[in-house]
């Protein structure tokens, strides 16, 4: 598939026509906010004074799930934190803490940065509601330490709220290094405590004992922004978008071979191919999409029109939503070469704590490079054997994510695997890299400099 394209063999570009599904979210949506507090209140209305149980019930009835990648039900997570605090005998030291995760470790994701720049007060509203739900008086908003634009925006927004004393919760902004594994939950706890942003061994999980030993609720910033709208407009309003088993909307970052790489708020349930249309259409024939990010999987382009963007729909196609990352991958690129570069990137981003990750990820990256760039015939069997020694054997999920992506590449690009092993690397392997693998923190799509301006219903990336 990655051989130089024969025009007659190309997929018709009409495969991804203009949007046919109701993809527009009625304004004002998540990205229609303001960094100016009075404008924000005029746009969305004042935050209702809900009791803890009302916030919990609203999240539960709305069916809100986490938007950071794991997709865990928000109400259950909050109740677990509150229950940990209730059964603790540590007195004041059992008071829960809230962490809002705006780190966006995925290089191909731009949605959390876009949300924080455009609607910081929605996120801060969500933090206030989450704090009320679990009984926290302190919250931490984690952002990339080198993303000065986002840091400044949220600091200004917090200052505006403190001036009018709109919140009962104190919100502290914490800068976290841009390393991939630094936005893992236990790594955030360590960073908030002033330590290195390195993953920890679990149990205990943060909901049991997190920051300073306190029960800690960790939610993605988009999840909290949804909560802020649900508490204003009600669970039924949220469920009016999406599908019965995947209610509501979600933010997605669409990039790669599309006319307008961008962040969009979409109703869950639309086909993956509609995302390509929202981003201005494909600029060349596509062979696949990277779905979910660098912990994600490859989806053949032919499956995009009938694969709905829901956890169940994507699972049926062997992939998962992750943090809403979709990268359109052209026919004239080599999936093995691109996956090899990402595997090397993930190996570089290991926290360096666990032997199977420290040793296994470079070994996997080297084998995939040998296949992609030298046509090593022994590589496929080696990769199949070695992934078993890496999956599930780290303190965090980095090794699991790396093996999932590599295994997916070997499956979806199986023809390429055979062609490379038989007749050496394809010319497309020498094409310029498509997927961002930033050498230095902050050089990816998620960085402040990478996203600018706004399209009609989305934010233009790059």
């Amino acid at each position, binding site marked *: 598939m990655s051989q130089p394209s024969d025009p007659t063999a190309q997929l018709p570009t009409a495969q991804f026509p203009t949007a046919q599904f109701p993809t527009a979210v009625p304004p004002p949506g998540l990205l229609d906010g303001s960094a100016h507090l009075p404008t924000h209140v005029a746009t969305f209305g004042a935050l209702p004074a809900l009791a803890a149980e009302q916030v919990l019930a609203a999240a539960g009835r709305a069916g809100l799930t986490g938007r950071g990648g794991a997709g865990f039900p928000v109400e259950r997570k909050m109740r677990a934190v509150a229950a940990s605090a209730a059964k603790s005998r540590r007195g004041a030291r059992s008071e829960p803490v809230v962490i809002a995760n705006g780190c966006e470790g995925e290089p191909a994701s731009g949605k959390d940065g876009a949300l924080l720049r455009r609607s910081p007060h929605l996120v801060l509203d969500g933090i206030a509601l989450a704090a009320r739900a679990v009984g926290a008086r302190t919250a931490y908003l984690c952002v990339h330490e080198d993303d000065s634009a986002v840091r400044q925006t949220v600091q200004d927004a917090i200052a505006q709220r403190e001036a009018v004393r709109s919140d009962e919760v104190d919100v502290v902004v914490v800068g976290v290094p841009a390393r991939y594994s630094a936005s893992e939950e236990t790594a955030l706890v360590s960073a908030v405590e002033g330590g290195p942003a390195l*993953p*920890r*061994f679990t149990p205990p999980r943060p909901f049991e004992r997190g920051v300073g030993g306190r029960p800690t609720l960790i939610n993605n910033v988009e999840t909290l922004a949804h909560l802020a709208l649900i508490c204003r407009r009600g669970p039924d309003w949220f469920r009016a978008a999406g599908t019965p088993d995947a209610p509501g909307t979600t933010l997605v970052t669409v990039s790669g071979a599309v006319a307008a790489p961008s962040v969009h708020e979409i109703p869950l349930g639309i086909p993956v191919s509609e995302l390509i249309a929202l981003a201005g259409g494909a600029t060349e024939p596509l062979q696949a999409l990277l779905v979910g990010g660098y912990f994600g999987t490859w989806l053949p382009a032919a499956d995009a029109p009938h694969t709905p963007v829901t956890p169940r729909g994507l699972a049926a196609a062997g992939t998962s939503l992750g943090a809403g990352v979709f990268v359109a991958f052209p026919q004239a690129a080599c999936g093995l070469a691109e996956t090899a570069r990402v595997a090397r990137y993930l190996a570089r981003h290991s926290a360096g*704590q*666990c*032997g*199977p*990750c420290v*040793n*296994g990820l470079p*070994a996997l990256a080297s084998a995939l490079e040998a296949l992609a760039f030298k046509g090593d015939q022994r590589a496929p069997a080696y990769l199949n054997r*070695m992934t078993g*020694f890496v999956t599930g*054997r*780290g*303190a965090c999920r980095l090794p699991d994510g790396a093996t999932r992506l590599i295994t997916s590449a070997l499956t979806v690009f199986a023809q390429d695997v055979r062609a490379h092993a038989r007749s050496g690397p394809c010319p497309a392997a020498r094409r310029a890299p498509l997927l961002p693998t930033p050498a230095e923190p902050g050089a990816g799509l998620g960085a402040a400099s990478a996203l600018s301006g706004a399209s009609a219903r989305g934010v233009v990336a790059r």
Partner: protein
Amino acid sequence: MSNPTRDGGEPRQRLRFNPIMCKAHGVCIELLPELITADPWGYPVLDGRPVPPRLLAHAKRAVQSCPTLALLLIDE
């Protein structure tokens, strides 16, 4: 090791290792080869099933012998 619960109400235990603490000394692999093998770099690969009662004493000895306290017996 097929029926670890046959001796009644004893809580079942499984082996886990803390990959951050483990420095691949290999002591556990020496002491409990029935349940622990080495990966290509010398780190332990654990049998994920409950520890059979006949091996429980050996498992406890392996846990106590780990120089970095990385091997754990976890109650189900």
